[in-house]
């Protein structure tokens, strides 16, 4: 049986224009890496929104895998921006193989 360890997976929905702030926060939290995946459209309190790269109004998911403590530090660091910038942050426990990397 291979060994797995528990880590947190954090996914943050954010405006493309603000990605650098998030990834900087991830780096600052001492997390080893991140991955960005595309998003097509969505609806929130602001009403329906569509991917409109022409007007620069598109969003992406930034996802990162980190040990519990670093994950909480990241969430803590981002919390103030969550309301002002309309980020959406979700996290949950996952199992990873090669846990020493994260």
């Amino acid at each position: 049986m291979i060994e797995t360890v528990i880590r947190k997976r954090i996914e943050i929905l954010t405006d493309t224009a603000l990605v650098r702030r998030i990834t900087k926060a991830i780096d600052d939290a001492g997390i080893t890496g991140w991955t960005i995946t595309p998003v097509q459209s969505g609806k929130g309190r602001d009403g329906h929104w569509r991917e409109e790269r022409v007007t620069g109004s598109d969003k992406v998911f930034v996802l990162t895998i980190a040990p519990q403590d670093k994950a909480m530090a990241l969430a803590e660091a981002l919390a103030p921006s969550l309301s002002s910038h309309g980020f959406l942050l979700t996290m949950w426990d996952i199992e990873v193989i090669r846990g020493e990397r994260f």
Partner: protein
Amino acid sequence: MDAAALQTFTSPVVLFFVLGLFAAFARSDLAIPEALAKGMSLYLMAAIGLKGGVAVSKSGLDSTIGLALLAGIAASFLMPLIAFAVLKGFGKLDRLNSGAVAAHYGSVSVVTFVTAVEIYEAQSMPPGGFMVAVMAAMETPAILTGLLLARSAASGEKRPAGEMFHEVFFNASVVLLLGAFAIGAVSGASGFEDVSPFFEAGFKGVLCLFLLDMGLIAARRIMDAKSLTWRLAVIAIAIPLLNGVIGTFAGAAIGLDVGSTAALGVLCGSASYIAVPAAMRLALPEADAGIYLTMSLSITFPFNILINIGLIGALANALVGPGGMML
């Protein structure tokens, strides 16, 4: 002007925009893939930059060009002040959103400019090639004014000034427009010849498809709009009218030819919906994107394409056209 106005509405370029509006209002599922729309906008900027540079390499530089550049930059810095006053007063917007919206009206819309050039060329009053450089110079100063106006209202972290200036000078569209302009100026007419089948012959066709997409986006956005009041809608038409007149008089005053005069009017009358929204997301994330995008993209942009370009052309003609008042 009647024939000219009619001409606007038989031009495929404008008709494709109308088709886009129609398809979106009819809730058709017609859509242009974003990668393509982005590609077309890069193409249009590269092409217009090249053409402008080649034109300047032919005509050379003179003091009028310098004056036009100065006038454009000054307008971009100052026009947000008027807009800000109107938005706060008549528009009843708060300081933060007024500043954000004002920045859009100080800046310019590349596609509005390009469409105007096509229309004025068809009316035998082609704007000078250097107006492309004027446009590039006008894109970003308004961002600074808008931010200063909004700043005291903005909470949270301030962005370092260096980051702002970097964005003003190295914004993607500024770099591409000025870069292509420089390439056109360096390689001149002979160098341009090789690439002209792509950048010149294809230009109007690409503009058709791009405006089809703009029509779809503009109409869909307004159908979803929630934060738009009738006051803001009125302002989104009044400001381009006013700024268009200011710009046209300024162009006439500094002695531009009729096409360039009209083009300066259009630049002043147009509102950014690419560079400035992106900057506002970064610098003023608390501002309501629903307001500034809907105003600039869904009201001002169509108004300019369908009506204001024609009006400004007529005004420029009356001022500095053949037999114009100011000649």
